[in-house]
């Protein structure tokens, strides 16, 4: 089979009724612009880290929104905080503080 360099994401079911959104609410309090994301993916497309490895900042954000925190902290450490994503976001999300605060919240027990 030809390898096109991408694959189909495995099917996922998240029951939002069973999720604990404390962390999300915490983040939204600190960086209110988080709510404005339309998941357009411009941030991921421009991301410096993404050019070297599998790193999808948009996806991380939506996982965070769905309270799927597993392995996120380690994944977030791939970000170089360069700020390109913040500059291209059409919805004016302040992405660097979002990343910094996600790290902080995920590292706090």
């Amino acid at each position: 089979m030809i390898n096109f360099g991408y694959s189909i994401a495995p099917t996922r079911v998240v029951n939002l009724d069973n999720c604990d959104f404390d962390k999300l609410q915490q983040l939204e309090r600190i960086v209110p612009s988080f709510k404005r994301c339309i998941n357009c993916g411009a941030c991921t497309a421009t991301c410096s880290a993404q050019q070297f490895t599998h790193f999808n900042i948009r996806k991380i954000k939506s996982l965070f929104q769905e309270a799927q925190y597993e392995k996120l902290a380690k994944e977030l450490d791939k970000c170089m905080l360069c700020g390109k994503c913040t500059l291209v976001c059409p919805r004016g999300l302040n992405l660097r503080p979002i990343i910094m605060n996600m790290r902080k919240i995920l590292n706090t027990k």
Partner: protein
Amino acid sequence: MDNYFHPFVIPFVLGAIFLFGICIWKYVRWFKHFDRLQRAVIRKNIFSWKFIPAVWEVIREGLLHIRISRKNLILGYMHRSIAFGWALLIIVGFVESRLTPTIDGSHPFWMAIFYRFFFHSHGTFAGAHVLTAIMDFLLLYVLSGILLAVIKKCYSKALGMKKATKHVVFDRFAKASLWCIFPFRLLSESLTACIYHNGGFFTQFIGNLIPTEFALTFEMTSWTLYSFALGTFFVSLPFSRYMHIFTEMVLIFFREWGVREKHERTGYTMYELSACSRCGMCIDNCPLNKELGINNVQSVYFLRDLRYKKNKPEIADNCLMCARCASDCPVNIDLMAIRQQERNKRNFDTEGNYHYLDNVQPFNAIGRIGYFGGCMSHLTPGITESMKTIFEVAGQRYWFMDEDRSICCGRPLLQQGYNQQAAELRRKLTELIKKSKVTMLVTSCPICYQTFKKDYKLNIPVIHHTEYLNMLIKSGLIKVRMDDLKTVYHDPCELGRGCGIYKEPRQVLQATTHLVKAKQEGEDSLCCGINLGDTLIDINQQKKIRDAAVENLMHRKPDLIATACPMCKKAFVHSTTLPVKDIAEIVRENLRS
């Protein structure tokens, strides 16, 4: 008078002893917290000629306050009259008391301060009249400064003008007593002059207006109040902002000897914190205050809270790191370094996860110039494309090291206190650059430029592309023509105040276009707002700061806005109908074959 002591001098004497005791105690304690390198540099320079510029600066800044005068004449006069006038009053007073023959030959130190109380006769030595007149003149000089201070206080309050600095309790105490000292001195000397006719031109003039009865009743009270005012001022001084009077002078010496702020807080930082006079010069031009009305984060409050240990992390974070305050500060405190120290204290400085960079391979670039565009230049391809053309036209062999993908220089992490992660990126890039054997590094982004220059140890020249273009034009490697546009140049914070590059970009622009001035430029230039320093303000607030920066450039109605930073360019393009170009793009368009 046959005895040179009177109980009323006690508050003054005790106050003075307390003051010097506390100062010495504090200074010794802080000095103990200097780090090894800071001490070494002091040892090396303490007995060198650096002593001379230090003394000169103490006179200029500690007494004459030249830097404040340059920003604000009246404020400068106020500070100068109080500091310089008072110093002279003490020196001349000391000379006067020394020259006066005393019965037992003793000259206790309070004699100079309460001279007219102890010596009632006029002209006990040659030239005494002249000294008396000088003392009166100096007293008037100081009083004029105090008067200005009172007016400034009432006036700015009454009109709700400029945010006067919010002060702590000790400041109020100290200030009230400071304001009382000189009026009481005038009153006491005048009362004594009324009784004994030993005053100078002014005190005698006032003394003659006072009824003798009144003078006889209140002379003692007035001298006592004078002594109390001095004593109170001295006791509150070490805990108030007036601690800056002595600390600034000590600080100037340390700085001349080569001591600098470190990554963490040291004893030197304590000197800097106390050297802040809370003059408030850093408030007015801070973009957060000016455009957004945020008025609790400016350097004056930041330093004050640090000094009194009331600091909150939000304050350190809410700052663009634009360094405008640092260039306005008349004491030249290293404000950016101190703010960075607080950010460095974050407990989330974890290891990075940058193993994905391991397989980025160096390139064999022996004899070539390394060109580093930086992440941001990838968003402004006009800049990198222009640089490529210019390299080729100039016949320079180069290696565009981040042409396809960019490793971040690490400064954005560094600024937010993620030092370990920044160091990992630095290690990777250093390895790449060293192994590629480039002869020189040219960067297009001032953020990268600053960190390559200050935090990397590359052992090759690192220059910004504006410097490089200037070299190419000067050496004739590229030829440019003049266009007929009026161009205004925006100084990027990181390039100007950050690295001191003001001249080269202007020289390039003068060779290619008609450079006109912005309203505020050079060290006073405004931040473009869309920078990486502040993580607490949102996009709408950033836009307000940006709009103010654009407004500032419109002063001479230019046809073109030039800048030298991809981020400033990105910021401005959405805010104006004028074209916004990087200097590299302007040069490329004006290349002549």
